[in-house]
């Protein structure tokens, strides 16, 4: 790859200094970078408030945005993510680019009425996204 790089350096003219801002633009993170977005719902919107007594509001959050081409520690992405990007860019565009998905969650306590009329307090795992990653 070093030799290929030297050859390509000889071919490609050095970027003229005056469009440095464009030059650096390619390193900026994408405008709509992958990040955590707020979303709040109330169970009455879903008509679930007949059996979900608490909490009244629930913020599951979600991850959305583009993954930068070379993802680093910012996302805690494994090296595989970069491999997948290279495959997409250089080998086979039908392989999807890395996606912006939740990496960590927090639990949620729910108070519900069961079909038999009994009442249950339950703590469910992984109900609120708290961190995003590119995978």
């Amino acid at each position, binding site marked *: 790859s070093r030799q290929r*790089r030297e050859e390509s350096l000889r071919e490609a003219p050095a970027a003229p200094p005056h469009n440095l801002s464009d030059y650096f633009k390619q390193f900026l993170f994408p405008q709509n970078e992958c990040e955590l977005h707020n979303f709040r719902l109330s169970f009455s919107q879903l008509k*679930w408030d007949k059996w979900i007594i608490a*909490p009244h509001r629930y913020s599951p959050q979600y991850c959305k945005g583009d993954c930068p081409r070379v993802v680093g520690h910012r996302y805690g992405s494994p090296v595989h993510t970069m491999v997948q990007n290279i495959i997409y860019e250089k080998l086979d565009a039908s392989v999807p680019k890395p996606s912006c998905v939740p990496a960590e969650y927090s639990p949620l*306590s729910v108070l519900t*009425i069961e079909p038999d009329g009994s*009442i249950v307090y339950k*703590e469910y*795992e992984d109900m609120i996204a708290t961190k995003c990653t590119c995978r």
Partner: protein
Amino acid sequence: PHSRDHAVSDKTSGFLVAPEDNPHRLNPLLRLPKGVRRGYALLPPLLKVLSDQGRQNWESETPRLQPDSRALRYMKRLYKMSATKEGIPKANKSHLYNTVRLFTPCSECKHRHRELMKGDLHSVDLLFNLDRVTALEHLLKSVLLYSFDTSVPVSSATTCVCHLSIKEYDFSSQVCPSASHSIAFSLHFEFRKRRWVEVDVTSFLQPLIATNRRNIHMAVNFTCLVGDPQRNTEQESSLNVALVPPSLLLYLNDTSEQAYHRWNSLRHRRKIPVWPKQRDTPLADLADDQGKENTQSKRA
């Protein structure tokens, strides 16, 4: 493991038809991979609503019996103590339960209990149906929850003696239940506006719940002596306490994947993999090839 799957699916509210049933009637959910089915079994209403087929029949097929208002008030109070307004479990909880189930007694086989007690024997037969407890929920503590509506404020301390006996109810012959074993213990508490009294029956119910007993039949005798029995004060003739049949409260540890296990909450703070320095990963060069001329500047 199969056993867990089996245990969970046969404890659900029966919406998963038995696999041996003729396939075209098979509930579409049974075609889901096991893991999802297990999840589905534990969060039936949530996920049923998300699956289109479930939408219409879920609302129709699960008529909900309305819970007792006192029980509801108690559980809302328990919720406020256990979670924040947003529903996040409070970290300072020292106990390990992640599930609390409150059952009100079924109506069968209950002696007509007198509403207002004259401070004397309050005897009631209780039948609790525990079908909702799954095989993955392990009992940590169980209590009988009495709610007292003291219409006459009772100032002094009160000692109540509670006799409990579990009955083996032979449903087949409808013979009157025979007490199989019983326990008696006394409670001493101050009435002072106390709304609830919890009678710990864990050791009593543990063996029954551990053997997956679905119907718990017990006779409870409850006698309250107002005033301090040591000074053998005259038992006040009218302890104006309306004793309503107690609810059964089960503190459980749900060992399923969907339940939150606070002692391994380290799992939540998953270590972000330490990212090797760019130059150490051969792939970084390869990736950099894309913008060939920028390798040096990037290194810089």
